[in-house]
């Protein structure tokens, strides 16, 4: 009940924001404002103009996107799963990647933290920029990138360890030593994922004893323990019931409010509408349309998007 109420409240806020006509200037917790309106093109169809705009950004003074891709294509062997996707993600915003099954949205997401490198036979072409720094040319360590770009998977996949060890696992391996530091980090991360109150008395029990929704929030906490500034989520709620889904959505919103840049794949249009600031529609391996969420649902431009939203395809 509580969750439902909270969510309804949030929906209203979102609606207001949507109607305000400028989704980019949200001021979560009143803490931050964008100095300049980021030049996310409301209707990017991969045109040269828009690509140039958000890769250089020079005509827009100083803005550099947290994460941006330019003409990213993904090949499995000879099969082209994704063709030339260009998109930008900013701090404090939630971007929903939507589209029918097999449209390349998860493939795209997995390119952003170079996870596709772990898939044999998979190659990623194009440019992936993290704070303006090219990361897809082999010049950076995927290990380093991934601790700044966290990921949450479709199925909750906690390790076979205690709740505490799940969260502390990666920081320990990345060099956090002190017990005090770890304890603090674990608590902070679990609070980020809105799980702390539920598990603070049983941190030593197995993570597998948690419910599906709790496991997924644990996975969020596990990713947040590295203090990333980007969180990639691959259909994080598809294995969960509606209540657990709303809890995750709340978590996502509060993470964005802290300034985290969230990219979330979802096949659920209502979820995209509830959670996201910006939507990107993928269809048959192509990024078709990008727009602020409100405008996207009210007034899709591309006929393929219109067909999809009206249920004619997908």
């Amino acid at each position, binding site marked *: 009940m509580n969750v439902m109420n909270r969510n309804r409240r949030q929906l209203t806020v979102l609606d207001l924001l949507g109607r305000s006509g400028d989704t980019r200037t949200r001021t979560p917790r009143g803490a931050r404002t964008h100095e300049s309106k980021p030049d996310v093109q409301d209707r990017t169809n991969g045109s040269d103009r828009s690509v140039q705009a958000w890769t250089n950004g020079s005509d827009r003074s100083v803005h550099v996107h947290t994460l941006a891709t330019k003409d990213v294509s993904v090949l499995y062997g000879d099969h082209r799963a994704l063709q030339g996707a260009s998109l930008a993600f900013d*701090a*404090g915003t939630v971007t929903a990647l939507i589209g029918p099954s097999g449209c390349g949205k998860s493939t795209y997401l997995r390119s952003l933290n170079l996870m596709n490198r772990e898939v044999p036979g998979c190659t990623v072409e194009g440019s992936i920029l993290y704070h303006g*720094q090219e990361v897809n040319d082999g010049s950076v*360590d995927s290990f380093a990138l991934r601790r*700044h770009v966290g990921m949450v998977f479709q199925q909750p996949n906690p390790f076979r360890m205690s709740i505490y060890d799940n969260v502390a696992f990666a920081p320990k391996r990345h060099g*956090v030593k002190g017990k005090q530091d770890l304890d603090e980090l674990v608590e902070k991360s679990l609070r980020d994922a809105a799980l702390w109150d539920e598990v603070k008395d049983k941190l030593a029990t197995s993570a597998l004893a948690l419910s599906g929704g709790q496991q997924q929030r644990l996975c969020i906490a596990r990713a947040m323990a590295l203090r*990333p*500034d980007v969180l990639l989520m691959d259909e994080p709620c598809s294995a969960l019931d509606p209540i657990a889904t709303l809890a995750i959505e709340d978590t996502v919103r509060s993470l964005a409010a802290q*300034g985290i840049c969230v990219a979330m794949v979802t096949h659920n249009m209502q979820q995209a509408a509830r959670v996201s600031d910006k939507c990107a529609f993928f269809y048959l391996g192509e990024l078709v349309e990008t727009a602020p969420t409100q405008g996207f649902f009210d007034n899709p431009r591309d006929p393929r998007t219109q067909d999809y939203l009206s249920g004619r395809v997908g």
Partner: protein
Amino acid sequence: MAPETSGAAAAEFPVLPVGLTGAADRTAERAAAAPAETPLDPAVLSAPEKRRLERRGKLLTGACVFVVMGAVAALIVSVAWQGLAAFLADGVDPVAFLTGAVWAPHAGEAAYGAAPMILGSLAVTALSCAFALPVSVACAIYAVEVSPSFGSRVFRPVMELLAGVPSVVFGLLGLTVVIPLVADATGTTGYGILAGAVVLAFMVFPTITSLTMDTLKAVPQSYREAALGLGLTRWQAICGAVLPAALPGILTALVMGMARAFGESLAVQMVVGNAAAVPSGLVGPAATLTSVLTMGMANEAPGTPAAHALWALALVLLVMSLVFVGIVHWIGKRAEDRHGTA
């Protein structure tokens, strides 16, 4: 400006060691210090210690693979080298080697005819599989199709145990049980191809049966349901739908059994009689490639023509086992080509 916004959140976090300072914190610092177009400090995106760790792990495990592959290559080269020496260095005629009926490395005029052993090996292999196959298939059908509870609770453990029984124990059983039976029945000493085949049949039985059971289990349940849905009896469903679908797998099982029978040495050597002459019948002393190798190698000094001739027998064994592997692959590939599945 976007990156700056994350600074507030980062400030609440516990102090982390330098190596882990979140990118959020750094971007905030950077944003304060320099124009945003300046590329991110490359150090943020490099993790040399992780890269070193990964490289070390890859080297270490790669070395293990290298050792395994090197050992196999050395084995094949070594056997081929010493075996081919019989033909290349000692001038044994390969055709005469394969077809010659006399094996007398120590006679005045040394003769290296491997036909008795090759025939002996083929005979025990063929006979043992002929004995084992029908029983194996019948047992597998019963244990998988008719009474799965008996299959999983009694039969499968018995097969696993039987598969683990060492070959010398089979040889011992051959000596104490099979030889007397054969001797009584035929009025001979009992040693020979027949006794060897019976012992081998017991050895290949668990191999063929287990693999056949796996194959039958892998036949989709829908095949059975489709057959039963057409009004067929269970027996008709087994014979008409399940067995044909499992045929490639059963053939594979048979070939694996043959490979085991062909390469088995001690159990056969103990009961086959060890007389390197062309077998005249199923009873009466005979020899196989493996039995001659087992008996002979102790008596030959390395590097002599007689030793090379023995290595040539080992080479025949090696080639045959590679042929068996090839057949298994061929069956698998053919089934895949036909039905799109392995």
